[in-house]
């Protein structure tokens, strides 16, 4: 005859469960403790690393890039916050400083280029402004992109526009460029010419007359390009940001 479960068995089961629970919490606590220890070690190492290589981070552009790559591969953004322990690295400071300088250059040149500037010109001007020290000079396009992207948090008054072939332009006037306006910039950048005409837009971008007129007249209104009425045949539209003499002046 099969015996039915008695009170003793139930109590025994309960006891076992409780023991399991206890063991569980102990293991969890252990793990937590270990994690904390590991984090502390990690943090300690990082701080050590930071103090040891702080200057290297500021000086060496290649080192900076590798560090950025490492961070992104483990899913960490050292620029995300100035408060977290990543701030001990000072890498954030480096990019913040760069971002401020980028804004300064954009402000200083916007009177002539209407608020768009090629990344290469930006880099040249920045380097001139940063002083002669080698460590100030070694600013890569990657650094600039990284810093400029951070400026996005201030709204759409500041953005980086890829114009194809690894070329970028930085826009520093309020108001977003439309897709069509970006297409015009891309066309200019790839053709290497500082000017367009309505007919060249129609042919090369396959646009209707009104679409081309809209895109261009908006850019004239925003002060990004100038009108030339003395071109043979039709008006042409010139972008100072793409005009060599303007870039080097």
């Amino acid at each position, binding site marked *: 005859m099969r015996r039915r479960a008695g009170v003793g068995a139930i109590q025994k089961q309960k006891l076992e469960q409780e023991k399991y629970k206890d063991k569980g919490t102990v293991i969890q606590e252990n793990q937590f403790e270990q994690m904390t220890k590991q984090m502390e070690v990690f943090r300690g190492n990082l701080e050590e690393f930071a103090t040891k290589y702080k200057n290297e981070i500021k000086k060496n552009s290649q080192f900076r890039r590798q560090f950025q790559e490492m961070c992104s591969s483990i899913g960490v953004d050292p620029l995300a916050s100035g408060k977290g322990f990543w701030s001990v690295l000072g890498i954030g400071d480096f990019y913040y400083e760069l971002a401020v300088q980028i804004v300064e250059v954009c402000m200083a040149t916007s009177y002539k280029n209407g608020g768009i500037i090629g990344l290469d010109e930006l880099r040249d001007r920045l380097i001139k402004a940063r002083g002669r020290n080698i460590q100030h000079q070694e600013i890569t396009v990657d650094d600039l992109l990284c810093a400029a992207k951070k400026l996005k948090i201030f709204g759409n008054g500041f953005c980086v526009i890829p114009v194809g072939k690894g070329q970028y332009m930085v826009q520093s006037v309020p108001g977003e460029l439309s897709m069509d306006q970006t297409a015009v910039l891309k066309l200019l950048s790839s053709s290497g010419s500082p000017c367009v005409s309505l007919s060249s837009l129609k042919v090369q971008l396959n646009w209707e007359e009104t679409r081309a007129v809209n895109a261009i007249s908006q850019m*004239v209104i925003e002060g990004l390009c*100038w009108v*030339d009425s003395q071109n043979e045949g039709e008006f042409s539209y010139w972008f100072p940001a793409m005009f060599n003499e303007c870039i080097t002046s």
Partner: protein
Amino acid sequence: MGDVQWPWQYSFPPFFTIQPNAETRQKQLDAWRTLLLDYCRTQKVSVIDVREGDLLPVFNNTTISRKLSPDAIMTVLGVLQKTGNAEPLDKTRTRWNVYWHTLDEWASIVYKWAQDNAMLNTVCTFYEIASDSGDLNGIDDGVLTKALRVLERRQQAEILTLDGGSGVKFFS
């Protein structure tokens, strides 16, 4: 006469078309103002005839085949007029005086020249003033006369008509 330092805008074709956008036009006219005053100072141009503007290289860049039209030249001169750097010589506003120093400034420069050269209380000719080696060198007779009229109003000089031309007496 020194060479002109052309700014980047001079080789920028749309610089020679008055811009439709107000903000851009402001930048353009500012640049024209600086360029034209610079040009007139280094090339000693005191009189500009709007109809013959394209005879002056400043208004006619043959390298890029761009000219500033007479209307546009008048617009630029109008900007100069606002700051006392230009003045029309006739009612149709075709002939203009350009002052790279305003008349007030010219007056002070002439008076300082008189002080520095011990010419106070004596009579000197326009020729003497215009053969100065500094700023006053080659100053246009018309401009000089206007500057001296300013001094007359300040009671610091008096223009005299001499046999062989004009002269002036400076008062201390």
